[in-house]
């Protein structure tokens, strides 16, 4: 499967700032999901956005989807040190139930 691309690979910001991570993919998708992973732990689901949706919010998180550009972004507003983690996007395409994960963005939020 075609692995998605995320950028930046690493992001370092100060507490209170906003963090934006981007995800690109190559095929048509059914939905796209964002996950967070704290060091050495499992992945925690954050948001699922379907192909017919353009934007979704969950607390301090905002996800956008641009199917014409085959890209999505995750915005974390007013970041906190506890937001320090790796963030992955994953998409489902065609009739596959197997998600394709991006390479991830490592976010460090300095207190």
């Amino acid at each position, binding site marked *: 499967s075609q*692995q998605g691309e995320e950028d930046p690979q690493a992001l370092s910001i100060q507490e209170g700032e906003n963090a934006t991570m981007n995800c690109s993919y190559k095929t048509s998708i059914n939905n796209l999901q964002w996950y967070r992973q704290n060091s050495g732990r499992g*992945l925690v*689901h954050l948001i699922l956005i379907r192909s017919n949706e353009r934007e979704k919010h969950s607390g301090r998180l905002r996800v956008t989807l641009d199917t014409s550009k085959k890209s999505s972004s995750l915005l974390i507003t007013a970041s906190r040190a506890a937001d320090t983690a790796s963030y992955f996007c994953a998409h489902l395409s065609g009739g596959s*139930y197997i*998600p394709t994960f991006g390479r991830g963005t490592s976010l460090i939020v300095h207190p």
Partner: protein
Amino acid sequence: SAVISQKPSRDICQRGTSLTIQCQVDSQVTMMFWYRQQPGQSLTLIATANQGSEATYESGFVIDKFPISRPNLTFSTLTVSNMSPEDSSIYLCSGSRAEETQYFGPGTRLLVL
């Protein structure tokens, strides 16, 4: 949502031995998957665990090395056989219902000496 537990959470093993990782889901899921994740890397899918039949393996992974069982909809095991230091990794199981959200277990950190 589904809660997924894995055990052991971590282990240190000698080369040449085998380790079986268990994955339990608290509700029925259609799909169960096993992933491997090297430090600082993304997830690599090992196989899809199929209920009552042989798992479907991804390229580069074989049943002799990673035998998988899934006797029912809520339980699966992954065995890492004849381990070498290159098998040191985090092993993650996940479950989902069709195109819905994937839920992940906390992972098993394996170190092979």
